């Protein structure tokens, strides 16, 4: 009997092992998964408390909270994976409120049979993204569903941040005359994911732009420019984001097609598939609307940041009872840039 090690359990097999129903049962297997994977990789004092919730220090200021579910397919794509995407997505949502992201929580819905090796890769990518961003994952949850009832991994992340004092950004604050800026090229994430899908293989070197934008936002706020709206044009793309803002603010917009940059492989892939890059998702870009007198200054600050070196002024806010987002085309004509109708690309983030 003295061979029995009282508190021993065989370590998880991250090479051959798979997610089992017991990993979500609340019992010892789940405790092991949490200890050997999540707590080990995410590695911070709040998570290490090991309680039902994380007890956090007092925060002064207005809190911002956001949550985002991630169901992207495939899980791994050029430039990222569901792990870093789930960190960036929520950090960006908090940052778009003019806030500094402080903490994240992550909920995993795993499908029975999912390879632990893939899960480890995803968790490592999340941990790395959180570390680079300086925003710890302080709480989490794991559930397992039977085989065939999920699709590998879904990750839901929640973020908490604190809004900068004196700054209120909101989709309903755009005013006629305001300047509209965009931080870079559009369509990279959506086309990176799409080009990886099994039934649509083409070799265009398209890399997702997934990135945490809170550093860029901080620099923009530091500039003192009178910012009114920040938003990241994810699902539905730039067109849908601008229509949301126009509707919330009761204004119109006039964009200039020649100012909106699209990477050449993205343009080619969109052309090939009959998609419009204006409607394709981004995960590392933002739209900013600011007072007209500050447009030039804000543009300089953005271009000085590595995540917005291709930033541009893409149009102006107009007075328009119909709330139309319009665009002057490269050809010299005019068109509406409407809401996305239906679903262009399901499961893009």
């Amino acid at each position, binding site marked *: 009997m003295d061979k029995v090690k009282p508190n021993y359990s065989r370590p998880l097999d991250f090479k051959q092992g798979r997610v089992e129903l017991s990993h979500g049962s609340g019992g010892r297997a789940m405790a092991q998964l949490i200890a050997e994977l999540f707590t080990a990789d995410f590695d911070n004092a709040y998570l290490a408390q090991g309680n039902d919730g994380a007890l956090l220090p007092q925060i002064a200021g207005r809190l911002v909270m956001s949550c985002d579910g991630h169901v992207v397919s495939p899980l791994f794509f050029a430039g990222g994976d569901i792990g870093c995407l789930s960190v960036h997505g929520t950090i960006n949502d908090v940052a778009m409120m003019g806030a500094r992201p402080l903490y994240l929580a992550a909920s995993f819905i795993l499908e029975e049979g999912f390879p632990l090796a893939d899960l480890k890769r995803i968790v490592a990518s999340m941990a790395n993204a959180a570390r680079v961003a300086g925003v710890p994952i302080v709480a989490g949850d794991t559930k397992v569903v039977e085989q065939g009832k999920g699709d590998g991994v879904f990750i839901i992340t929640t973020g908490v941040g604190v809004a900068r004092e004196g700054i209120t950004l909101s989709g309903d604050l755009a005013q006629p005359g305001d300047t509209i800026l965009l931080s870079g090229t559009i369509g990279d994430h959506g086309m990176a994911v799409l080009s990886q899908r099994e*039934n*649509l293989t083409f070799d265009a070197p398209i890399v997702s732009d997934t990135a945490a934008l809170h550093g860029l936002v901080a620099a923009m706020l530091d500039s003192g420019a009178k910012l009114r709206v920040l938003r990241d044009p994810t699902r539905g793309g730039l067109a849908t984001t601008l229509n949301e803002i126009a509707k919330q603010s009761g204004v119109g917009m006039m964009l200039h097609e*020649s100012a909106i940059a699209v990477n*050449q492989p993205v*343009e*080619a892939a969109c*052309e090939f*598939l009959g998609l419009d890059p204006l409607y394709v998702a981004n995960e590392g870009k933002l739209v900013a609307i600011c007072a007209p007198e500050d447009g030039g200054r804000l543009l300089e600050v953005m271009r000085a940041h590595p995540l917005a070196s291709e930033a541009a002024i893409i149009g102006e806010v107009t007075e328009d009872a*119909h709330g*139309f987002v*319009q665009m*002057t*085309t*490269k*050809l*010299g*004509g*005019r*068109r*509406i840039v*409407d*809401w996305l*109708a*239906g679903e262009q690309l399901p499961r893009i983030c």
Partner: protein
Amino acid sequence: MKYVDEFRDGELARNIAANIAREATAASGYRLMEFCGGHTHALSRYGIADLLPASVRMIHGPGCPVCVLPIGRVDQAIRLAREHGVILCTYADTMLVPCSDNLTLMRAKSGGADVRMIYSTQDALKIARDNPGRQVVFFAIGFETTTPPTAVAVKQAATEGLTNFSVLCNHVLTPAAMHAILSAPGGVALDGFVGPAHVSTVIGSKPYEVFADDYGKPVVIAGFEPLDVMQAILMLIRQINEGRATVENEFTRAVTREGNLKAQALVEEVFELREMFEWRGLGSIPHSALTLRPEFAEFDAELKFSIDYVAVRDHKACECAAILRGEKRPQDCKIFGTVCTPHNPIGSCMVSSEGACAAHYSYGRFRDAA
């Protein structure tokens, strides 16, 4: 981008526009029908109306495959998926076409029918190979452009002995639709056609000669890029000014007089003319559509599952029929932009991005508001 940006160049567009403005001087104006939805889309997306003088009026034609499909044809597809339990493979645009019982293929899918959106006939074949225990039906729609790929798929299925694959064939013919437009009693008055781009790569320019010779209507075949369309408009204006009616080809980089003989032979081998086919808007037109030849009958889903075509009337407020004949404009329809929007389409012309109503709604409706 190479071979794309060249055909969207703003300066060239302004040059062509200046020529059009200088030459379009006939007091009676110019009523030009762009046959294809691809042209309609290019006109709208690039705001070409802003570059044309008031004397040039573009009239949208019936060349949008999803638009001309009558409700009864989509009903057949839905019945196959719901009642016969097949995997129904379809191109994306047909998913949202409203049909009987307040259904669309999308709603049928939500309700449990196995409807799958595909990009090519090869995807449908793959699904059939991967699901040997299920029947797989490809909902084949479109003009002469999409017909050869369907023919390839049928031949491949025959060679491989794929007994669980079949085709619900709704392929239609462009010249038949042009005849119907020109011979409709009290139909729209036209001075010329911007002729099809992709269709013509297959059938060539020869089939349009009858419209110049017998009906006296100039035809200029044009590519789908905005400069193609503008150049074709200029070429039509010149023909009309000179009193000529011939078939000219702006799209020489892809279209010849004879077309793609190999594709034509393939289509000829697999398909034959239908006696009669009902089009939305144009009514029943003899010899205007294709069906599988008897040798390939085992791949004909209509025969295989014995699903008859049942004609269904359009929504009574919907003007798609008159719009497809060029007799009305989208904004002439009472429900345009109110009850009927791309988000909640009532008629097929509001569904596809090539449809006249969807194109005008999505890109041009600010013109109505001004």
